């Protein structure tokens, strides 16, 4: 059974996971702010700050390198993290990138995890033909060449975020399904499940009301692993130009920045890299901590 209060308290007690939690909350705040900005400018049909082109202020270095009044004319806009090739604010674009990263992380998880949970529970609980079908489906999808298959789905679904959601979501449910299936199989033999069956509860109720809460930690761990992986994959796909179109995703920013890196415009690349790195690192670390805490099977990995 997951006690979310207890988990957060235990994660908060350690200094390293506390930093990871704070970082994730900060990113979440940035993503929410980005969403608000995006929505506001969409409803008011105005140019959002991250798309505001200022031709006269291209490649302005970050604010702390070039304070207003030194080198720049009076009344120049302040760029905390510099500006890009069209004079757009890198900070604003980074925040929009965070928004897209959270969209991708959450929506792909919303596709992959329910799919994996449903199939894993059914296969593990029913056994027999249903299980054989689930195992077959898992084996089939698992033998596809990962990234290329995601790219193919994204290409067929059409360039854009929908393609990314479907591509990542429809390929990554396999690991969730396999873990959950094994765990549900173990629980099927437990006394509490047999008692529920004796009481005449429906199979549906036994699976989703009795077994699922007991294996929910696997779902939580799966989410904490899937989220950073999806974000990293989205960066890769958008970098290749198959993903997000016309919005400042981190992958697109890297692709823009790399062309001017050779001319010494380092800030855009550095800050995007840092933004991705810190988010993924925080999530990876949190995933490790959660796994150590919640999964007894993997606890041997932790050193006493």
């Amino acid at each position: 059974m997951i006690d979310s209060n207890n988990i957060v308290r235990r994660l908060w007690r350690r200094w390293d996971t506390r930093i990871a939690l704070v970082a994730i909350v900060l990113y979440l705040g940035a993503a929410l702010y980005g969403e608000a900005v995006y929505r506001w400018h969409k409803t008011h049909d105005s140019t959002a700050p991250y798309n505001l082109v200022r031709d006269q202020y291209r490649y302005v270095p970050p604010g702390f390198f070039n304070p207003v009044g030194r080198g720049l004319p009076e009344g120049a806009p302040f760029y905390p993290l510099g500006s890009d090739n069209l004079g757009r604010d890198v900070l604003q674009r980074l925040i929009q990138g965070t928004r897209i990263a959270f969209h991708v992380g959450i929506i792909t998880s919303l596709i992959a995890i329910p799919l994996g949970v449903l199939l894993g529970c059914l296969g593990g609980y029913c056994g027999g033909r249903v299980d054989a079908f689930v195992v077959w489906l898992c084996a089939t999808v698992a033998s596809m060449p990962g990234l290329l298959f995601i790219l193919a789905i994204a290409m067929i679904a059409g360039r854009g975020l929908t393609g990314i959601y479907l591509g990542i979501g429809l390929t990554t449910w396999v690991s969730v399904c396999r873990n959950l299936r094994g765990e549900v199989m173990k629980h099927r033999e437990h006394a509490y499940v047999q008692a529920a069956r004796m009481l005449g509860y429906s199979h549906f109720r036994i699976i989703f009301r009795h077994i699922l809460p007991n294996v929910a930690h696997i779902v939580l761990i799966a989410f904490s692993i899937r989220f950073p992986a999806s974000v990293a994959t989205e960066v890769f796909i958008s970098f290749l130009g198959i993903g997000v179109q016309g919005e400042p995703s981190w992958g697109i920013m890297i692709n823009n920045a790399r062309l001017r890196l050779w001319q010494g415009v380092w800030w855009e690349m550095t800050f995007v890299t840092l933004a991705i790195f810190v988010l993924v690192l925080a999530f990876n670390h949190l995933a490790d901590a959660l796994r150590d805490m919640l999964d007894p099977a993997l606890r041997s990995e932790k050193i006493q």
Partner: protein
Amino acid sequence: MKHYIIHRFLVMLPTTMGVLLLTFLLFNVVGGSPAEVVLGKNATAEALAVFDARHKYDMPLILGRWSGVRALQNVSSTRLKFDRRSAMAEVPLGYGLPAGIYRLNASRAFLSLRRIADNFDDEVMIDAPGEAVVFTVPRGWKVVRLLADGVAGRNLSLEQKNSAWWDTQFVHYVCSLFRGDFGVSTEYRVPVTRIIKEGVGPSLSLTIPILVGGTLLGVMLGLLCAAWRGGWVDHVILVVSTILMSVNYVIWVLAGQFILAFKLKLFPIWGYESTAYLVLPVLIGIFSGLGRDVRFFRAAILDEVYKPYVRTAQAKGLSGMRIMTRHVLRNSLIPVITYVSLSIPFMFTGSLLLESFFGIPGLGSVSINAINSSDMVVVRAIVIMGALFYQVVNLITDLCYAWLDPRVRLS
């Protein structure tokens, strides 16, 4: 052993079939009609139908006797034109129906036939007591006008009869794959098999060193971690590998190329001319995967460290080094080999980003180009090849296990 081999082959069959079915559904059904992909959006319905007939795309998808025809396009029964003279509804045909057996869900049909050789016209009226009108267009004739009665209030459907229920697109697709026919690239107009043959070599020259180097380095670091478990060496390696794991792959490639090749000029930047050109991509490949590998190998080795035989060996007074390399390493090789063998099939499909950024003409850069130019045939071929290789390598790994370990084949 013989029984195990047969059993293992039988287990492989449904998965292979699943792979073929999944790729078929993804590329040939969801991906849109291949005829429209090849001929473009502005092709006439007749040209599309001719293309379909030639490549057997006019067959039912997976199983069945009837399949829809292209002649009938975007029709809803409410908008049918009414023919006053015969008091029947006009079925809009995109082109003259060629020879074949057709089924129309109407109670009565009126056909205007035309002999193609001399434009001789003929007319036939067919009454159907049952649900649908079935008519045959003889060889050398085509239907130029089709009127139907009793179609009001339902969706019109005009279907062509197939020679056999198993003679379908999917079966044709599987057969052509088994013959080694992966289709022709829409971008380069050459058979895909040739593109794959040319690309496998460069891909392997990149991925084999990455796999071997990455595994050796990873196992060594994993052993170090396990030997000093809980100590500072273990902690440092673990923290560093988590950090390495969190660096995006794109960044690895860009930073490696920019800093090591462009700024420090240690390696050539781009090209595929000598071994020197491969050093940097191989290094990047190894280090980008190292974090995950080390963590996995460390966990695999630690699983063994606490087993009783290790304690026995310690009690007998063996040195720590000897226990680690002779006893623990050997036993932990099983998960390690499984882990490594699962990445062997993807060596053939190459590394997408490394190849296109370092100008290595392997299957990775071929795939990227194909995706950028929407060359579905090439993407499909590489996906299928990767998946089939996966099946084969899995089979070989399992057979090796069974050969090495009697418990596997007897259980």
